[in-house]
């Protein structure tokens, strides 16, 4: 039987997980890496790169590389114009239509780019099952997670991405709910749980009641445009300002800066100070170096963290609960590693949040558990989620009439009666909206449709019942019939920010035409991935504020020099087309740093025993 996997399609990283023998686990690639960077690059020969290789191409061919595509899913050009200039690729689109991303001479929609990421995860899972000697390693279907606050257009775009990757999307589930499922499974906890999920590009807060194996979401709130990306951009703007970089013409340099500030951001979750270092800035002889303390960083990101607190309060209010009634707070998403975020969540809920599961993996684990429930039909556990936004239609004067209220448990349905205004009128226009505001123009347009085939009658006589159904994925469908004659109406919804079925079909064919599987290229990529891992680990150690102290007492000067030389050597060889060269130099750096690794291990053990940096040790052990 072909497999059903759980997929966390993240802004920054994506993962795939699977339940085997009742035990969920994330699936790593051939070199042991579970996180797939959500980055896609397309070169001149139309070869598509996904993940680490695409991440490297950000520094050499930024204009043909897409990251954070999740921020564009189900959105229009007018939603992204504020941040667009900081992205290396060109963006276009008509107002109210789907966004197009330009990579060289080709154009892609966000679901196509996400589809490449999903296809890579599918391939990774199939390779894993094949390695395990599975009789049928094919992955035909998946449960994919989305931010709880995703609207209908964003969910539909995610489902389209799955189709483009050749996956049947069995279910779309919400990320915080998936995380809660993974936690509940682990601890068998009952009570009120608040899941605070701050990822690369989105923020969600969900309040759940867990009882007798039922995970019932009481309320959810969030912001689908708030996350680690925004922190990175603040830092990039400072450094780009220092260097006088123009994002429009120096995209590669801006990406080098972005890589450096992300590294510094990570460092500051562990240490009180660090340096932002950018080597090889065009027009500069020496590399750029800027000292930054955790206090400076916190004052910079405080407004972003503050923006997460209001949705938390609104979710509590909708759930009819006060913060003190929350029994457990759970942190999800890479950005919750920032100490300031942890402090604020602790202050809001008056309790220390749980961080015992890996915040990067917990969502994928939950998705795999849900996939297992769907396939096995086991009934011990059940997710009851809600729709995050109210659904309504535009009525006279541009006012919204709400049909399904936010935080309604899904599946949910509602209906509305329509009639005609003119004698013998045979069609009525209906505009569907999602959001909480009173005026139609302030809400998100989901689509318009024309109700056709109404039997000609005097005005006001036809009674057309339009039924809105939100399924367990949080996705809307519409049906209608005229009550007097019982005639069913045909409805074709033109999605405001989505693709029509025909467009998806066409893209499906195109993506097959351009699919390229090159074994040699793949092996080169794997070797590069491995090299990059050790480069990253070595550089991180060298950047520690206390490294000079450690080196002076524990290493000989020639050892230190050898490490620096081997590191520089390997970095130099990264671009080489011959994978053997990279492999040899990787082994050399491994050799050179062996003693250093032992020293660092002992150092952290001693630090832990001394008790002064227990948190630091815990953070490293993650």
């Amino acid at each position, binding site marked *: 039987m072909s497999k059903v996997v759980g997929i966390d399609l993240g802004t920054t990283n994506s993962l795939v997980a699977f339940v085997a023998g009742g035990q969920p686990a994330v699936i790593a690639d051939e070199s042991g890496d579970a996180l797939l960077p959500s980055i896609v690059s397309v070169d001149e020969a139309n070869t598509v790169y996904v993940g680490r290789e695409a991440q490297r191409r950000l520094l050499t061919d930024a204009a043909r590389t897409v990251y954070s595509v999740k921020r564009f899913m189900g959105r229009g050009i007018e939603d992204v114009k504020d941040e667009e200039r900081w992205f290396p690729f060109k963006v276009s689109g008509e107002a109210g239509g789907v966004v197009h991303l330009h990579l060289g001479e080709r154009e892609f929609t966000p679901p196509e780019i996400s589809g490449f990421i999903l296809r890579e995860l599918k391939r990774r899972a199939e390779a894993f099952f094949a390695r395990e000697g599975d009789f049928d390693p094919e992955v035909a279907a998946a449960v994919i997670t989305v931010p709880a606050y995703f609207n209908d257009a964003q969910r539909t775009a995610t489902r389209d991405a799955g189709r483009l990757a050749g996956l049947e999307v*069995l*279910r779309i589930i919400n990320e915080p709910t998936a995380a809660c499922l993974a936690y509940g499974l682990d601890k068998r906890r009952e009570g009120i749980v608040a899941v605070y999920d701050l990822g690369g590009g989105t923020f969600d807060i969900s309040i759940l009641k867990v*009882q*007798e194996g*039922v995970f*019932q979401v009481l309320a959810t709130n969030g912001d689908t445009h708030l996350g680690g990306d925004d922190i990175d951009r603040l830092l990039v703007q400072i450094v780009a300002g220092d260097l006088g970089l123009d994002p429009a013409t120096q995209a590669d340099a801006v990406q080098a800066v972005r890589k450096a500030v992300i590294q510094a951001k990570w460092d500051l979750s562990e240490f009180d100070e660090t340096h932002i270092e950018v080597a090889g800035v065009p027009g500069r002889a020496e590399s750029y170096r800027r000292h930054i303390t955790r206090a400076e960083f916190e004052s910079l990101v405080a407004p972003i963290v503050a923006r997460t607190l209001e949705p938390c309060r609104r979710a509590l209010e909708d759930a009819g609960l006060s913060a003190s009634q929350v029994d457990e707070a759970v942190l999800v998403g890479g950005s919750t590693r920032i100490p300031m975020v942890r402090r604020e969540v602790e202050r809001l809920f008056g309790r220390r949040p749980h961080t015992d599961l890996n915040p990067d993996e917990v969502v994928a684990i939950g998705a795999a558990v*849900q996939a297992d*429930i*769907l*396939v096995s*039909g086991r*009934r011990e556990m*059940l*997710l*009851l989620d809600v729709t995050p936004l109210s659904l309504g239609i535009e009525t006279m004067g541009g006012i919204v009439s709400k049909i399904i209220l936010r935080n*309604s*448990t*899904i*599946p*949910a*349905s509602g209906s509305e009666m329509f009639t005609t205004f003119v004698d013998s009128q045979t069609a009525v226009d209906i505009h569907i909206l999602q959001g909480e505001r009173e005026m139609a123009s302030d809400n998100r347009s989901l689509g318009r449709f024309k109700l056709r085939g109404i039997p000609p009658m005097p005005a006001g006589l036809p009674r057309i019942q339009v039924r809105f*159904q939100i*399924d*367990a994925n949080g996705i809307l469908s519409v049906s209608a019939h005229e009550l007097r004659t019982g005639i069913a109406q045909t409805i074709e919804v033109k999605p405001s920010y989505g693709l029509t079925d025909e467009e998806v079909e066409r893209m499906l064919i195109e993506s097959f035409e351009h699919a390229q599987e090159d074994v040699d290229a793949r092996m080169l990529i794997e070797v590069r991935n491995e090299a990059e891992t050790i480069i990253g680990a070595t550089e991180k150690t060298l950047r520690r504020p206390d490294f000079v102290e450690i080196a002076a007492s524990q290493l000989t000067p020639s050892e230190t020099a050898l490490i620096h030389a081997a590191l520089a050597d390997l970095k130099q060889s990264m671009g080489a087309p011959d994978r053997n060269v990279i492999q040899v130099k990787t082994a050399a750096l491994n050799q050179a740093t062996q003693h250093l690794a032992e020293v660092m291990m002992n150092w952290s053990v001693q630090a832990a025993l001394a008790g002064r940096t227990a948190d630091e040790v815990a953070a490293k052990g993650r």
Partner: protein
Amino acid sequence: MQPDTSAIPIDPCKHCGTGAPVDVHFCPRCDRILTLGRHGDYFTFFGLRRRLRLDLNDLEQRFRALSRLFHPDYFHNSSSTERLASLERSSYLNDAFRTLRDPMARLEYLLKLEGFTPKESHDATTKVPQGLLEEVFELNEELEAIQDMRAEGASAAAIALRLSAARRPIEANLARHEEQLHARMSEHDARLEAGDPEGQREALAELRTLLLERTYLMNLLATVRREVSAGEAAAS
């Protein structure tokens, strides 16, 4: 005495054709989930009598148990008829739970079921209920006086004080209404238990009036609140 089964509406199972009473969720013969054709009401769906005072813990437990029976998660590999039945039955369950767990929504729903269609509720915002005429008159005078104060440049503190004084009698009246509503709901349930349909309808008629007045009072309070925030906006 034999129960009279002829009055119970029967729907056929789409799979095996066996007739099943509406609000039986699964076919008694083939055990498949039944499509939601004609159905009873939210109360019978939960297996409850039409009571206005419900034990919320019990309701929640029934909701969870029924969710475990209907949820689309469990019909993934079933026929499309069953999948649709599961979707519709789950949606109906969720709507029913949302309505019944809230006492006022529950009351409104029962009034509609029992034919007390609150047509007047549409006018509730425009037409003043008889019992509240005096109250509304006084409040309107107060609000006018406050608007004059504002025009004459009275201090924000003085206006706020006057506004909070103006809302106090309405809040007190609202509290009285809540109390009476709950008392009448208990009475309705007692009549139901006693098999006294006449008394039940009397209680419902009173409840409808109380509910309308309560809605009206809430709207009045919202008006005062708007006045307060208008004052704050003007002050800042």
